[in-house]
């Protein structure tokens, strides 16, 4: 116990890492459920429905399937790189989430008042881009080491796409940096506090709307998602760079892709959508009950669904989920928890909105051909990001120019 | 201040530079030789940053920035040249491209 008292920062960091890992793995697993359900409902069908109540145990079933599948290794492949590539992809994708703050400095763990972030780095944004730019290696090495034409072509195409859109990604963020003047994530969020006319939040999506559009488009291309997913589209290249991967390594590539999606959405909420800030004015303190109220409403709906629609084991499973939701709702009503849960609740809500947008574009838009993709990235997106940067720079420096001359 | 003495960093920079020279002299593949050049540049960067910290000046860091930028430009052109040579001579062995006449 004195170890905890002597090194509060270290123990607090370990606790935060464990909590983040647990929550992250759950989110990654259920993101696949979320995606399949939404794509299915857009296509007028139900999606996973039978495995658990409303298909909620589908990720568990998929995980068990991946664990028990036969693990093939292509005979002439480069064994070291073949095993290294998915680990690299997953590790880099999950490392970026250590830099992202989920809430303000309201929590004190073991007497150490802390933001809800694992690592509060002064140049957090720059480091996040550094780790993202290393993510190209996972894809390139996977394509190379599989010793197959489909994989090599898919890997090269995919990594060329990633490095092309990385430039636009970085440039579209610099506008926000010019307005905020700092790389630190916490300060980037707190500089978006305040309201225009007392009720429109001062988020950076207003001044930087073009930047947001460029950023999100570049992000969809960077994470190899539709409509930019030619390198891994099944109809075009069999499987792209993960053709020769099976069972757990394949699952790792999938988890890496979802983790990249989550990272990019988190970054978009912090930079453009105000992070953990609430969109409602501070005077409306009754809005603090919103997390609890929404969870309890969900519990009521699930209770109705359990009683009326479900039969058999599904009824029992959904009852369990209802009790969980109700329990969480009541937990949010506790006076100790309520101020703490506000930041993460709004952060998760905005992130969920962006993830929904990701899945929506996947199920709606057709796939871009590779040359269309590259010409879009270099000939349209890059000039637009540069234009956004120049206009923001002019806006920032205009008062100084006027003062001078 | 329990910081690491700067001379440790200088010795590490010397070791890396020496290993870069060894790789440059003993390898056959053009691309590996080019990578040895990048290793030498990195070792020099480390020495610059160490000295910048030792004298508490920022000029060393600015110089590192310029070295990285120039290395990027040089890699782009150098690798384009290597691609052209490989297409013309069909070999990446440096002992087979040692004559100006094809």
């Amino acid at each position: 116990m004195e170890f905890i008292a002597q090194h509060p920062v270290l123990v607090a960091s370990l606790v935060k890492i464990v909590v983040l890992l647990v929550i992250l793995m759950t989110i990654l697993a259920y993101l696949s459920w979320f995606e399949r359900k939404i794509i299915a409902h857009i296509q007028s069908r139900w999606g996973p429905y039978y495995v658990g109540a409303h298909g909620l145990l589908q990720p568990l079933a998929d995980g068990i399937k991946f664990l028990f599948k036969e693990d093939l290794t292509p005979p002439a492949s480069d064994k070291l790189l073949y095993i290294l590539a998915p680990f690299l992809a997953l590790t880099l994708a999950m490392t970026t989430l250590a830099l992202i703050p989920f809430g303000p400095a309201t929590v004190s763990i073991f007497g150490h008042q802390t933001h809800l972030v694992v690592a509060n780095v002064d140049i957090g944004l720059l480091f996040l881009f550094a780790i993202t730019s290393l993510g190209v290696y996972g894809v390139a090495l996977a394509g190379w080491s599989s010793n197959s034409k489909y994989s090599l072509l898919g890997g090269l195409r995919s990594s060329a796409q990633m490095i092309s859109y990385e430039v636009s990604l970085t440039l579209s963020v610099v506008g926000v940096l010019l307005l905020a003047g700092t790389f630190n994530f916490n300060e980037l969020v707190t500089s978006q506090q305040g309201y225009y006319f007392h009720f429109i939040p001062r988020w950076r999506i207003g001044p930087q709307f073009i930047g947001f559009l460029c950023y999100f488009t570049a992000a969809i291309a960077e994470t190899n998602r539709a409509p930019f997913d030619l390198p891994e589209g099944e109809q075009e290249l069999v499987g792209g760079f993960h053709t020769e991967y099976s069972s757990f390594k394949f699952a790792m590539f999938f988890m890496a892709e979802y983790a990249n999606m989550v990272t990019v959405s988190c970054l978009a909420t912090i930079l453009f959508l105000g992070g953990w800030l609430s969109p409602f004015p501070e005077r409306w303190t009754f809005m603090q009950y919103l997390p609890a109220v929404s969870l309890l409403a969900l519990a009521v709906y699930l209770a109705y669904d359990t009683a009326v629609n479900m039969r058999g084991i599904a009824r029992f499973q959904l009852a369990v989920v209802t009790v969980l939701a109700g329990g969480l709702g009541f937990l949010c009503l506790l006076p100790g928890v309520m101020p703490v849960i506000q930041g993460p609740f709004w952060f998760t809500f905005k992130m969920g909105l962006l993830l929904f947008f990701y899945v929506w574009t996947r199920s709606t838009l057709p796939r871009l051909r590779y040359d269309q993709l590259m010409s879009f990235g270099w000939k349209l997106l890059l000039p637009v990001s540069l234009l956004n940067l120049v206009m923001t720079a002019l806006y920032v420096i205009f008062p100084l120019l006027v003062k001078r001359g | 201040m329990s910081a690491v003495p700067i001379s440790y960093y200088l010795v590490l920079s010397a070791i890396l530079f020496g290993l870069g020279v060894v790789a440059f002299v003993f390898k056959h593949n053009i691309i590996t030789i080019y990578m040895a050049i990048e290793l030498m540049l990195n070792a020099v960067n480390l020495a610059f940053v160490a000295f910048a910290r030792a004298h508490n000046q920022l000029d060393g860091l600015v110089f590192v920035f310029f070295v990285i930028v120039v290395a990027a430009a040089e890699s782009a052109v150098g690798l384009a040249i290597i691609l052209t040579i490989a297409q013309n001579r069909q070999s990446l062995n440096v002992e087979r491209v040692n004559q100006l006449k094809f």
Partner: protein
Amino acid sequence: MSLPFILFFVFAFFAVVGAILLIVAREPIHSALALIMVMVALAALYLLLGAEFVAAVQIIVYAGAIMVLFVFVIMLLNAGVEERTNWSKLAKYAGLPLGVFLLFELTHWIARSAVGKSIANGSEATNAAVSTRALSEMLFRKYLFPFEATSILILIAILGALVLAKRDE
């Protein structure tokens, strides 16, 4: 053995191991990966020296762009296996010990010289990290001309690479 020392030796170990792997590896792609390991270890050492911005630029530009270029070229050219030459007896039994001895000698005399002692003290060094704002002020005020000149240099490099890599039509 305080934490900075342990971190220094860990990352220095990775850097030297990466450099040795660069020499010893049989395939160019393994050498490229070893060089990436060296660069990431060096970025960590820059962080230890307090240069945060330089560490991030090293990873973004060097390890994340230049080495990606190297890996692409190796994959495109399908650079084969390095031929293994047996080192001559002279190199193995005389060269290697002499090299190690030279290294020890250099370290000894560097540490004992006046410059070495003053650097080892690090008495002028503060422990604070260099802020990006200070670095950028120096970059845009004192070194503005080299900055603009390097941007022209990059433009020339892009044009050169485009012309060289273009197929004759």
